[in-house]
């Protein structure tokens, strides 16, 4: 037998620690002592290095076997004979035992297990889905170099080519400045009908300013944006793939907007500007004389400059503009020009909807956690006897807590797996339900969503476990052993009550948010758009830019005749710009006999015959266009009530003459006001003229078809599309929709966010109700003996119900007050989505509170009913 030195002395620290950690307590000293002495012997024989190598080989060779043994012992509960005086293995062993025990407990309590896992999985899945969406859309870097140095310079009227070209060489404070405008174009491929591409026309330096080089080929060169330059185009990666992913596409010509353009470059996958739907970019032909244009400007700041410090620069720029151009008071672009960081400009509109949803999901997760914690607390209370016995038999408090944590971790892991599945489903639902516009196509699921779900679930489980652990820590475990047998009340239930109060507060917070949005959207829907949106189908078409005016007019006439003949179509017409789609053209107006009238403009719409009948305008006076309005005859104008009131006051406008083009045109009728711009805008002065009687015919139109029934829209729309492709192959069909849909879009993002928030609120209320039910059930069960005695002494069952429900309602009421206070503050998050209601709207708060009180009372009724039916004799005998 070798002499045994002190186990610690002489053995390098790390290998010793590794072995100690994976050896049961009873066997540690033997192992370490033997290794130490053999190590010492080898050291004197082979030197320090040789002995070290031997030791490490022992440790690394032993660890897998020792870890397997720990797992196996934990799993089987094996404890060798020799260790019976000093039981207990490695930490892993006890964790595995506790996990097995937790799994067994959950299996034998399926209702509790399912409720806990599903509740948590709902919260986890929703949160993971929305955070993965938020991460993908709001937190990813933009595909431009140094995005913090990019700022958009804009005003509500947009900039013209002349203004851009004036500013470009001398703009103070910026390194470079580019201009762009949306420019959708038709694409004609041989053997296929024309289609519409989302495009951007820009100055030649756009990609340089963005700092985004193409993946293939080149960007635009310096003078390719002058008038008369060759037509070139850069494709998006997705567009390149649609055209066959051919690397030899560079230099090829494609027919775009009716002219042949050369493909010079392809952008990398993942690049987008200004939104992910754009498929082509091409240089705009910049004319220094042109005062028209709808350009936005984007500028790159020199490194080190920040947008916040650009206030002085902004006034310098507007000063330059004001010195060069004459602006009328109404159109003064120098007054409302803004500099906005590029991220805010491009993604700002996504934020309120996404953040409101994320907040709602976070609240649901919190509610779910509180629910599961309350459930576990109830379990701990129900297990007081078991825990007390285990404690009396020598289980340390740490060990009892570890068991609770293991159970929470088990619930958390299962909820994480289920939640990851829900998250994948929920992600699709969210993308469909949120107002993401072009970004919906950019949102995609990746593995991180699943990792996120598991992480959130485990974090939630840890949070949940602290509740029963704290309760156990504070409680005198062994004392319960005696109380369980004799006393009628175990624990005060204050912690459970607190959890339900928190849950209800969160649910009220959400319900208040949803109520605000619902009220807001109801108000939006209550606005009269001035037209009958029911049963109107819409076909948006775009004609090639190069198509001559007369041919445009002729093509439109033929298309209207053909679509009017389609089965199910009552009448067909067309307009240059539909109501509810934002402001369109404004034209100057003069009135005969009123030379003193200051120069002003009103909205102007070119329409086809029967437009007002098809759209359901109300005729106020005179007549609408009919067959007597011939191209060669006197031009007629239909005006709306707003124009009549504003420019004619009390006079009768019918028969008066107003000027739009070179000559004066006769007012033939007055129609009711329609929402020609946005739904919430006040009525805009608008006049309407016939395609046949105006010298100018725009290239895009909306064909409107009034149908026999709204349900016929899909069939009629596809028939109309086929007809257009057949009769006019160069005309691109841009969109097929209905006026109801246009109206819904005009109601805006609040409608979509409302739908989602309403669903989530229902979920939160359900979870809140489950929480109230669980806690009140537990409260009732704990006091069964109390109820029995009181009823034996003559308490009426009706009063029992009253008392129990009263307790439930009291919990809810406390929570509701807290929640309402929170909602008062928190609802400002929604303020950009609201219309006609204030963020702290008292009616919405009251509605939310009332809904929760009702849910709480209903949830408390079932256990109350049970308490009222208790048979005093049975309960008292049981004790």
């Amino acid at each position: 037998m070798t002499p045994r030195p002190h186990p610690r002395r002489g053995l390098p620290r790390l290998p010793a620690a590794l072995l100690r950690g994976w050896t049961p307590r009873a066997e540690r000293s033997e192992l370490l002592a033997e290794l130490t002495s053999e190590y010492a012997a080898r050291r004197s024989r082979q030197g320090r290095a040789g002995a070290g190598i031997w030791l490490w080989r022992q440790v690394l060779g032993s660890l897998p076997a020792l870890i397997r043994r720990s797992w196996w012992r934990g799993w089987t509960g094996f404890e060798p004979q020799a260790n019976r005086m000093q039981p207990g293995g490695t930490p892993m062993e006890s964790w595995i035992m506790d996990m097995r025990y937790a799994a067994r407990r959950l299996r034998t309590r399926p209702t509790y297990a399912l409720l806990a896992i599903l509740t948590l999985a709902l919260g986890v899945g929703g949160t993971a889905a929305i955070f993965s969406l938020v991460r993908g859309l709001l937190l990813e870097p933009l595909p431009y170099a140094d995005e913090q140095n990019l700022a958009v310079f804009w005003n509500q009227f947009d900039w013209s080519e002349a203004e851009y070209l004036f500013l470009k060489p001398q703009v103070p404070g910026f390194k470079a400045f580019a201009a762009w405008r949306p420019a959708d174009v038709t694409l004609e491929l041989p053997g296929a009908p024309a289609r519409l591409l989302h495009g951007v026309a820009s100055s030649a330096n756009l990609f340089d300013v963005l700092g985004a080089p193409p993946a293939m080929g080149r960007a635009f060169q310096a003078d390719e944006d002058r008038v008369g330059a060759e037509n070139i185009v850069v494709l998006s990666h997705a567009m390149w793939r649609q055209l066959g992913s051919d690397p030899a596409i560079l230099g090829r010509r494609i027919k775009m907007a009716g002219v042949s353009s050369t493909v010079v470059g392809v952008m990398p996958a993942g690049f987008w500007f200004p939104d992910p739907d754009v498929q082509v970019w091409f240089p705009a032909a910049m004319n220094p004389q042109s005062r028209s244009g709808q350009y936005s400007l984007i500028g790159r700041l020199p490194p080190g400059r920040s947008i916040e410090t650009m206030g002085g620069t902004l006034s310098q720029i507007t000063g330059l503009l004001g010195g060069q151009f004459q602006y009328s008071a109404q159109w003064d672009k120098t007054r409302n020009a803004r500099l906005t960081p590029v991220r805010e400009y491009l993604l700002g509109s996504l934020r309120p909807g996404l953040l409101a949803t994320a907040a709602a999901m976070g609240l649901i997760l919190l509610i779910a956690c509180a629910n599961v914690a309350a459930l576990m607390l109830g379990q701990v209370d129900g297990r007081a006897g078991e825990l007390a016995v285990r404690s009396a038999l020598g289980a340390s408090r740490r060990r009892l807590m570890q068991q609770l944590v293991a159970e929470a971790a088990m619930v958390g892991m299962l909820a994480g797996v289920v939640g990851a599945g829900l998250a994948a489903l929920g992600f699709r639902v969210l993308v469909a339900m949120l107002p993401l516009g072009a970004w919906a196509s950019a949102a995609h699921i990746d593995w991180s969503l699943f990792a996120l779900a598991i992480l959130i679930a485990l974090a939630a489980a840890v949070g949940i476990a602290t509740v029963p652990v704290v309760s156990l820590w504070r409680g005198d475990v062994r004392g319960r052993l005696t109380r369980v047998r004799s006393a009628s009340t175990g624990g005060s239930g204050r912690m459970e009550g607190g959890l339900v109060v928190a849950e209800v507060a969160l649910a009220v917070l959400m319900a208040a948010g949803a109520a605000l949005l619902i009220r807001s959207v109801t108000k939006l829907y209550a606005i009269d758009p001035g037209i009958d949106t029911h049963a109107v189908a819409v076909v948006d078409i775009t004609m090639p830019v190069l198509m001559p005016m007369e041919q445009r007019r002729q093509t439109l006439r033929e298309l209207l005749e053909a679509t009017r003949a389609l089965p199910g179509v009552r009448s067909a017409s067309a307009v240059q710009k539909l109501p509810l789609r934002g402001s369109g053209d404004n034209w100057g107006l003069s009135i005969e006999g009123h030379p003193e009238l200051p120069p002003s403009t009103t909205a102007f719409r070119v329409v086809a015959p029967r437009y007002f009948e098809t759209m359901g305008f109300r005729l106020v006076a005179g007549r609408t266009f009919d067959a007597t309005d011939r191209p060669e005859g006197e031009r007629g104008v239909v005006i709306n009530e707003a124009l009549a009131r504003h420019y004619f006051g009390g006079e009768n406008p019918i028969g008066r003459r107003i000027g739009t083009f070179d000559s004066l045109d006769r007012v033939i009728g007055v129609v009711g006001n329609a929402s020609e711009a946005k739904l919430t805008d006040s009525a805009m002065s608008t006049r309407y003229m016939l395609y046949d009687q105006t010298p100018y015919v725009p290239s895009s139109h909306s064909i409107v078809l009034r149908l026999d029934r709204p349900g016929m829209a899909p069939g009629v729309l596809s028939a109309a599309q086929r007809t257009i492709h057949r009769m006019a192959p160069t005309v691109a069909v841009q969109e097929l929709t209905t006026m109801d849909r246009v109206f819904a879009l005009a109601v805006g993002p609040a409608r979509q966010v409302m739908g989602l928030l309403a669903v989530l609120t229902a979920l939160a209320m359900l979870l809140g109700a489950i929480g109230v039910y669980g806690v009140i059930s537990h409260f009732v069960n704990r006091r069964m003996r109390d109820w029995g005695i009181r009823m034996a002494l003559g308490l009426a069952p009706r009063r029992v119900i009253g008392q129990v429900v009263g307790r439930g309602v009291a919990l809810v009421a406390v929570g509701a007050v807290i929640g309402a206070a929170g909602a008062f503050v928190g609802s400002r998050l929604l303020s950009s989505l609201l219309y006609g209601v204030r963020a702290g709207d008292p009616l919405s708060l009251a509605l939310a509170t009332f809904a929760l009180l009702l849910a709480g009372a209903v949830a408390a009724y079932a256990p109350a009913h049970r308490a009222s039916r208790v048979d005093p004799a049975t309960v008292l005998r049981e004790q």
Partner: protein
Amino acid sequence: MGADGLLGAFEEQVLLAVIRTAGDAYGMEVRREIERTSERDVAIGAVYATLDRLEAKGLVTSARPRGDPSRRIFTITRGGLSSLAATRAVRERLWHGVNLARLGTEPR
């Protein structure tokens, strides 16, 4: 040990080493015994894990001697002996009639 009650190769070696070191058969000594006879390194963790498994199957028992309670001393049981015998019998039946020298692979 497989489902047929036979021992795995390492289990057999550990059991034999327990018999050879009888009276002083604790983990480290068993390891040394195998190393001495097989002339190769054996990781102590593997020996401990195997001894645990053998004890769980009732082929060895462990106890702590009164004078030195830090050591877990193993003794082979009746079941352990019969498992060894069965394993050896199967092996000998398999070896019967096999002549490695004739196949030219017997190390000289």
